[in-house]
């Protein structure tokens, strides 16, 4: 075979190899993996994995209630979480639809559009942190970013460990609540996001009462009385609640309110996964340490 010909063939070969790699790489980096999800917890995990979903249900409400990590503007809105717009979903031609067990009844219909993955978090009687890691790995495998999962898990755990080092050796117990109205709060305990974070940070949760399957219990304010703990209020406050609390004898007599050590945290998605966990840990520890300094 003459040399030039061979060389040409070699060049051809290399070119085609290059083309092939380009073809393989481009869809991964240039285009988002065509995964859609109805669940905000799955959505935040996808974004954190660097595999932005093509569409999310109630994207505008996600900005309000989850916020970080932010959805890119390119993410399409599917309509209500409980009733995503099927026509729109079909026209987006997703490769995969991720749901949580809450939307299981939609499964059969959605599976006509694309394969449906039902991913659970906060299952009863499981270690929440382990479950979050498993969830992250499963999602990453589905979008073919397995390395990203390990990175996200390692980053999050390192971040939490860093936060833990900022805390005193035996931090005081906390009581984490979110106001429903001026008389009722959700208090967070077993089997929830906040509990999982507190465990990693080595902080005790002062709430020992029972909680529902989503890790909280709805109680009247009087249930907080008599618990020796520093109060952490997760925002937002409903309208008028702060004013009403100023008049509430019981609230004003809570030790943490009386000595001004109560902490208020910006909103975090209470049913989130690793990204929400990290954000909660960082804002919590920052508030605890800053506040502690003022306090002393």
């Amino acid at each position, binding site marked *: 075979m003459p040399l030039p010909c061979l060389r040409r063939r070699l060049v051809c070969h290399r070119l085609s190899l290059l083309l092939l790699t380009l073809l393989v790489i481009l869809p991964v980096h240039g285009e988002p993996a065509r995964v859609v999800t109805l669940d905000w917890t799955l959505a935040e995990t996808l974004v954190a994995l660097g595999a932005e979903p093509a569409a999310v249900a109630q994207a505008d409400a996600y900005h309000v209630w989850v916020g970080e990590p932010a959805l890119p503007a390119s993410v399409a809105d599917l309509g209500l979480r409980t009733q995503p717009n099927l026509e729109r979903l079909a026209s987006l031609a997703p490769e995969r639809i991720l749901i949580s067990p809450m939307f299981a009844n939609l499964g059969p219909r959605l599976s006509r559009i694309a394969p449906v993955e039902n991913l659970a978090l906060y299952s009863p009687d499981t270690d929440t942190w382990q479950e979050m890691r498993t969830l992250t790995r499963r999602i990453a495998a589905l979008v073919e970013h397995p390395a990203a999962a390990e990175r996200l898990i390692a980053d999050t755990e390192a971040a939490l460990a860093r936060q833990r080092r900022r805390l005193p050796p035996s931090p005081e117990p906390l009581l984490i609540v979110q106001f429903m109205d001026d008389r*009722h709060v959700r208090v967070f305990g077993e089997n929830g996001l906040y509990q999982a974070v507190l465990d990693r940070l080595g902080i005790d949760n002062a709430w020992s009462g029972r909680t*529902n399957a989503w890790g909280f219990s709805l109680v009247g304010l009087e249930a907080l009385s008599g618990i020796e703990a520093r109060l952490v209020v997760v925002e937002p406050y409903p309208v008028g609640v702060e004013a009403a609390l100023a008049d509430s004898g019981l609230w004003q007599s809570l030790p943490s309110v009386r000595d001004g050590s109560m902490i208020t945290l910006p909103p975090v998605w209470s049913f989130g996964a690793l990204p929400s966990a990290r954000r909660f840990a960082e804002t919590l520890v920052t508030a605890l340490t800053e506040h502690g300094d003022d306090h002393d």
Partner: protein
Amino acid sequence: MTTTSLTRPRAPALLCLALVIALLGLAGASLARQDLATALGALFHASPEDAESLVRHYAWWPRLAMSLLAGGGLALAGVLMQQVLRNPLAAPTTLGVASGANLALMAATLLAPGLLLVGREWVALAGGAGAMALVFALTWRRGLAPVVVVLAGLVVNLYFGALGMVLLLFHQEALKGLLVWGAGSLAQNGWSDAAFLAPRLAIGGVTAWLLLRPLAVLELDDASAKSLGVSLKHLRLAGLGVAVFLTGCVVSVVGVIGFIGLAAPNIVRLAGTRRLGERVLWSTLLGALLLATTDQLLQRVSGSLPTLIPTGATTAALGAPLLLWLIPRLKLERRPDVATSAFGRRHAAPGRLAATLAVAAMAAAVVALLVGQTHMGWTVTDDWAVLEWRLPRLLAAAGSGVLLAVAGTLIQRLTANPMASPEILGISGGSAIALIAAIFLLPAPGNLTLVLAGTGGALATLGVLVWLNRHSGFRPERLLLSGVAITALFDAVRAIVLAGGDPRGQQVIAWLSGSTYYVDLPAALAVAAAALLLMLASQPFTRWLDILPLGAPTARSLGIGLDRARLTLLLLVALLTACATLVVGPLSFVGLLAPHMARLMGFTRARMHLAGAALIGALLMVVADWLGRQLLFPQEIPAGLVASLVGGSYFLWGLRRPL
């Protein structure tokens, strides 16, 4: 007004005494858990270092005070309403005041939160007064007849409830606090609420006392009352104004508390108290004690549960069976029926009108199928990949429209009552209770499970209805009032379930909002087939349907076995309603509106009335479903709600004429 065996003069006093003993026992048991002297002392002051005494002072005692105040206030409002309207079933909850207040607060939370800072009670008051005004507007021309008023109240309750559901569907996170409030919790954390409520109730009480003598005149009939020189209109307005004010104040502080306002005055009356002054006194006392005792009981029970059991909804749930027991014992004033003769002008050519409607329905169906918004804007398409999603919904909408319209026509003719509708029988409510139970008790239930649960619930409700009314010969008013009780139970169950804030509540809300969303093609075909079959099945009964509205004596003299006819039609209505409920949920006012619109258009004979209503029902639902999918694209507004809004507006507009 009533004739029961319970006529002993001391009866209300004895009842109250029994409740006082029960209350003291329960409260004493709770207080005895710590040192009694300290616990009693905590009423006046709390020692800041002692958590136990803090809870007593700031939560337990105010809660007891609040339950007494709220119970008394609601019972007083109930007596006033019942006296003014001469209607033993009038109450803050039955007249829509509570649901009006609820909706107003929801709307204010979303649209104008500033209003809530100005004063929650005024927002609640405005909503309540608006709802009641609507009830009166609906019933004015029927002379505010008791049964009609209560049914109109129920319609308004359902309508406002539906609006509330949709606000919730789109804004569940923002409204979660109001769900707790809507279920009526008495939890307290200071004396400020009690201090707010007490003077307002005192003002209401004094005003009621001043109105006592003139109001007693209302026991006479209108003519005699007028001859005594009383301005009836102003008197009624004043009486109702006080009642709404009392309700609004209570509701704005502790939320919606069902049943007390209805039950306390009726129990006192059944116990043999006749004079208005005595009824006001004993009802107020009994209401206060009833709520306080229930609340103490609940506190004992709910301490160990992971979620709060709201008192207001629980009293309503516990009260529903009592209401079922109460209804046959109430003597409802019968007034000469006016409206049924006015079954509208007959259209000259109903056949041609029906044909026009059929063409309109077909045209709407074609548009709904082919035209729609996509991510590229408005498009016309005949691509099966798109139609695949639209066809089931179209069929389901049309089918359930027909089912509900036929059911509505049957029940309105059966009861000779233009306010009757399938929802009001309670069948939808019963099937909804079963569905809620399935969603919450079973792990990840599929659609088939839900359908089975819903059917079971509908059948069970029907069984209860038939069993309760077996002796009264299925008298229409009794039937409808049993439905009121079942619907009250459903409202209570819904409120309790949603108040807990469980994320599965979203699924309940989505289903309750009345959407064709969950229907796939086989189900849609089944609905359409059922609509067609049941429509045909109703044809043999058109003779009964022509005669029944003329009244029982006429029907009997024409040789109709009333019991059998009523039971047969009732079964048919139940079947129709159950089928439709499973598809579009319990709330869609097509069953109320379509028969009306058909009558207004001039379909008078039963056969044409059925056909006209069915066509209008189908048209309304198809248009509603399509509009719902387009208006807020990509979010979808449930068809049932759009139908209610479209039809409801038409309904109110039609009020300018006699119904």
